[in-house]
């Protein structure tokens, strides 16, 4: 049987890794919702959720239970299949990014050398970009299938916003690619571990642009136009209820985690702990420290996302488009030129 000729241990290793990463992401996302409510509460000078469990720590479980136990309603004139497909697509697209994120250095498990990354493809950055461009389908399909004018308007807004900010994001990525010379996220992180500085030093403007574009791609305030309550009632998930609504809300938090992980890996050294020599401890411990470092960086980015959400009001739609096309893209092109000039001068 040549069918079974591939390395089964390899497949099992990858499946276990995918399961761990997906469930860990879901778990972190669960507690990110809690974090969001607590951060909002602190910024607004109120206690926030504090009843369920110690410090309100069981609140996300209660929220999840509430969402699951609510009645599922599919509107009569909705397109049933696409109505169900929408939240699923949103969730899939946001979870797919985690395939190329290098979580840490390799570990040794029972004599096996296990890289803590699902797939080290040599087109990692482009893969991220492709998944980001897939993310808009969940919103568009859900919004259209609801057969509601508000939902459709919101879906169209989401799509045009995503397309506009993808351009600036892509241009910022190209500048980073020019300095690193590699599209593989693992190589990019290893360069930063080995080199003196993180990429943020070489690409400050690029990072700023990427961060703003990431805010827009995650539909976070000040770019949460697709769910502007005062204009569109509730946005693209207006007709959704129960766990399908939960999937949409959850996908947003997973998007936040993934974009934080990507930004940490690309600009802030990934799993690199500064002023610490990884070779001085056992490889498994070094890998553990690496995972912890990356998680701390992710949490800091998520806090930044929340801080911005609860501080800055929402843009108007024309302001959003002006910022995207007339400020971000020219700045990204300028960044590209500057990077090219510096590389040429260094040759």
């Amino acid at each position, binding site marked *: 049987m*040549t*069918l079974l*000729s*591939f390395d089964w241990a390899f497949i099992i290793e990858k499946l276990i890794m995918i399961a761990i990463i997906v469930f860990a992401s879901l778990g972190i996302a669960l507690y990110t919702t809690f974090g969001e409510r607590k951060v909002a509460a602190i910024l607004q000078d109120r206690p926030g959720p504090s009843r369920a469990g110690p410090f309100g720590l069981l609140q996300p479980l209660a929220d999840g239970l509430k969402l699951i136990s609510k009645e599922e309603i599919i509107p009569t004139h909705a*397109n049933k299949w*696409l109505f169900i497909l929408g939240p699923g697509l949103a969730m899939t697209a946001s979870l797919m990014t985690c395939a190329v994120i290098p979580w840490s250095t390799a570990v040794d498990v029972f004599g096996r050398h296990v890289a803590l990354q699902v797939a080290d*493809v*040599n*087109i990692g950055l*482009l*893969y991220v*970009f*492709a998944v980001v*461009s*897939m993310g*808009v*389908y969940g919103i*568009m*399909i859900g919004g*259209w299938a609801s057969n509601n004018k508000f939902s*459709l308007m919101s*879906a*169209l807004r989401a*799509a*045009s916003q*995503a*397309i506009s900010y*993808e351009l600036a994001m892509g241009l910022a990525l190209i500048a980073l690619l020019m300095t690193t010379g590699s*599209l593989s996220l693992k190589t990019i992180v290893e360069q930063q571990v080995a080199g003196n500085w993180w990429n943020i030093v070489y690409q400050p403007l690029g990072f700023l642009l990427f961060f703003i574009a990431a805010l827009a791609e995650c539909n976070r305030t000040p770019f949460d136009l697709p769910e502007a309550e005062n204009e569109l009632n509730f946005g693209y998930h207006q007709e959704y209820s129960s766990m399908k609504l939960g999937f949409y809300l959850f996908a947003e938090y997973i998007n936040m985690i993934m974009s934080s992980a990507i930004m940490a890996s690309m600009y802030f050294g990934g799993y690199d702990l500064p002023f610490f020599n990884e070779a001085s401890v056992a490889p498994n411990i070094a890998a553990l420290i690496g995972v912890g470092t990356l998680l701390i960086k992710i949490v800091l980015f998520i806090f930044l996302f929340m801080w911005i959400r609860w501080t800055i009001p929402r843009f108007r739609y024309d302001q959003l488009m002006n910022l995207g096309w007339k400020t971000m893209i020219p700045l990204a092109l300028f960044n590209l030129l500057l990077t090219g000039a510096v590389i040429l001068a260094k040759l």
Partner: protein
Amino acid sequence: MNTLEILFYALSAFAIVSAVMVLISKNPIHSVLWLILVFFAISGHYILLNAQFLAIVNIIVYAGAIMVLFLFVIMLMNVKKDKEPQKQNLIKFIGVIAGGSFLTLLIALVKQTSQLQGKTVLLKEGTIGLIHPLGKALFSDYVVPFEISSVLFLSAMVGAVIIGKK
């Protein structure tokens, strides 16, 4: 059959079924979604041929950007299957001629493949599809066509902006 062959046949079946569904779906939105699946299947074929760059660019450009615009237009036009107007005979006639000539072209192409019989496809071999060799080839051997096509793209972009402003 080895793993690659199984993947090849599965992807081909996936692509063909999706392509047929594009044609027979009554709802234009469903057609667009099936078409996106066709692009994914084709990207899978590219990966089998070790052309990772082409695979991912196919997804970014076609599945990610162009199909979003298709969806946009169809959603805004709100095309419904029961409201679709009956086409005039002349348009049907033109359609038959255009489709027929394309079919002839396809049959000619399929006939040419007879010389490929008994040869194996180079699956997962060669490095030209990887990003480094591809970039080197584009910017050294094919730099003039590459630059000319980028100028063409730029002029198309300017044209689109001008038409959009009217």
